[in-house]
């Protein structure tokens, strides 16, 4: 006998369609609605970010413009401070570029032996050649000061003629790297004293070279030779001329760093 299923075919287990009667359209509508809700949420968040950021940009830009305008109003102060710094720097450079004549004279007086005396002294900064020729033209210094400082004077003329306003930096009359030289003339009681003088002059602070130009013992009282020498040496006493060359003047940067170091270490106080 053939079995007959009495349960209606649409109510049997496992045979109910997933799509239901609408054939899945209901699920599709739900999915679309859910998706649209999610998209709306994302759009809302993005839109809010946009409006927030627009407001922030406007606010920040306005603040920046206000700050810039205020800084612009105060710009003359900044310019003045810059002018002050520039001038400070320029004057400092000039101060640093000077040769310490007083110290050199002090050192000269300190090291000169008792058996030697000076009759004339000529010092130059920057013109090694000029001082070398100075011994041959002792009277030229006072009348033509530019002759013994040709390089610095020439620099000065160029600066003036070219218009100082156009000069980007300050030109010192004794620029860094200039070599100070002394030509000393004098008398000694003996040639040994001249030799001692040469040795002692090397002890001067900052001296790089000491060169004897002449040392001539006179038979009687005679004018001493050398640069501007008009003093008399004793009978038989040698008259000498010695050139003392100092180390070149340091650059401002070197002095600045040395000053900084001195300031930091507390040395020199």
């Amino acid at each position, binding site marked *: 006998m053939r079995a007959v299923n009495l349960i209606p075919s649409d109510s049997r287990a496992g045979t109910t369609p997933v799509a239901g009667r609408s054939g*899945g*359209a209901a699920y599709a509508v739900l999915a*679309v609605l859910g998706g649209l809700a999610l*998209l709306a949420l*994302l759009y809302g968040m*993005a839109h809010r970010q*946009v409006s927030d*950021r627009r407001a*922030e*940009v406007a606010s*920040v830009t306005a603040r*920046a413009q206000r*700050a*810039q305008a205020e*800084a612009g109003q*105060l710009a*003359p*102060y*900044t*310019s*003045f401070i810059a*002018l*002050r*710094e520039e*001038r*400070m*720097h*320029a*004057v400092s450079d*000039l*101060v640093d570029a*000077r040769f310490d*004549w007083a110290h050199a*004279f002090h050192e000269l*007086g300190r090291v000169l032996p008792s058996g030697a005396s*000076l009759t004339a*002294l*000529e*010092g*130059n900064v920057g013109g090694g050649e000029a001082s070398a020729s100075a011994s041959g033209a*002792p009277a030229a*210094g*006072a009348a033509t*000061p530019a002759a*013994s*400082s040709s390089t610095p*004077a020439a*620099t000065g003329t160029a*600066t*003036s003629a070219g*218009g*100082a*306003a156009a*000069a980007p930096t*300050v*030109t010192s009359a004794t620029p860094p790297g200039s070599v100070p030289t002394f030509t000393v003339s004098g008398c000694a009681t003996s040639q040994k004293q001249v030799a001692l003088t040469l040795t002692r002059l090397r002890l001067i602070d900052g001296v790089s070279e000491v060169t004897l130009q002449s040392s001539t013992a006179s038979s009687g009282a005679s004018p001493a030779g050398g640069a501007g020498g*008009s003093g*008399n040496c004793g009978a038989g006493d040698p008259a000498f001329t010695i050139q003392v060359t100092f180390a070149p003047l340091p650059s401002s940067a070197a002095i600045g760093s040395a000053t*900084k170091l*001195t300031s930091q270490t507390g040395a020199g106080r």
Partner: protein
Amino acid sequence: MTNRDRIVLIVISTVAVLAAGWLLVVSPERKKASSLKTQVDAANSQLASASGDLARARADQVRYAAAYASVVRLGKAVPAGQEVPSLMYQLAQASNRKNVEFSSITSGSGSAGSAAASASAASSASASGASASSTAAAGFTQMPFTFVFNGTFKDLYHLFQQLNGYTVRTTSGGLRVSGRLLTIQSTKLSPLSSTTTSGGAQSDRLTGTITATAYVLPASQGLTGGATQASPAGSATTPVSGATTASSPSAPAIARVTP
């Protein structure tokens, strides 16, 4: 159309609708937000820069009075005009103090003429209140001079010390200004020919011939570049109080200028 086909079609349609919504609505808005984020960052960095400038400008405003005073004092070392009388007065004072006879002063060679012209132009420019640019180059005009002093070696040594000491650098790196800045280029010491002591022996007095250079501010700049004690040139605002004010007649002669 089978049931399965219908489901596939529905899924595809749903995904297409959602993708279209994302691409056409949400994504452009997110891109806009992202580009605005870049704008916000740029605006923030602009603000930071402007704030920094403003802070610096305000600090400069606070420092103005002190800076003005130091610029004025630096004018003692490098004046706006030639200021030969004050230089002579300074040399005479130094030589008297050091027991040295100030014999002569000669203006340097041809360059001094142009230096004088530049210097007078500078002083007239500052007198007329021309608002020279504060950022102009600080090229100074040189003024060469030759001085002759008579005195002993020791006295002349002290004089050199005095001349150098008018403007010196301190150990802290600042400047101490009490007079005209002079750069000595050459010196010549020789016995004073005409002097002998009462006993007939030669005197120990020397003639010191000094070639030195003084400096003058360029013609384009006045002493303060048109600034006054109250405010710099072209400023509508007034400086913030609290800093030291500029030098007064009762102020001490020596000024310490620290960078």
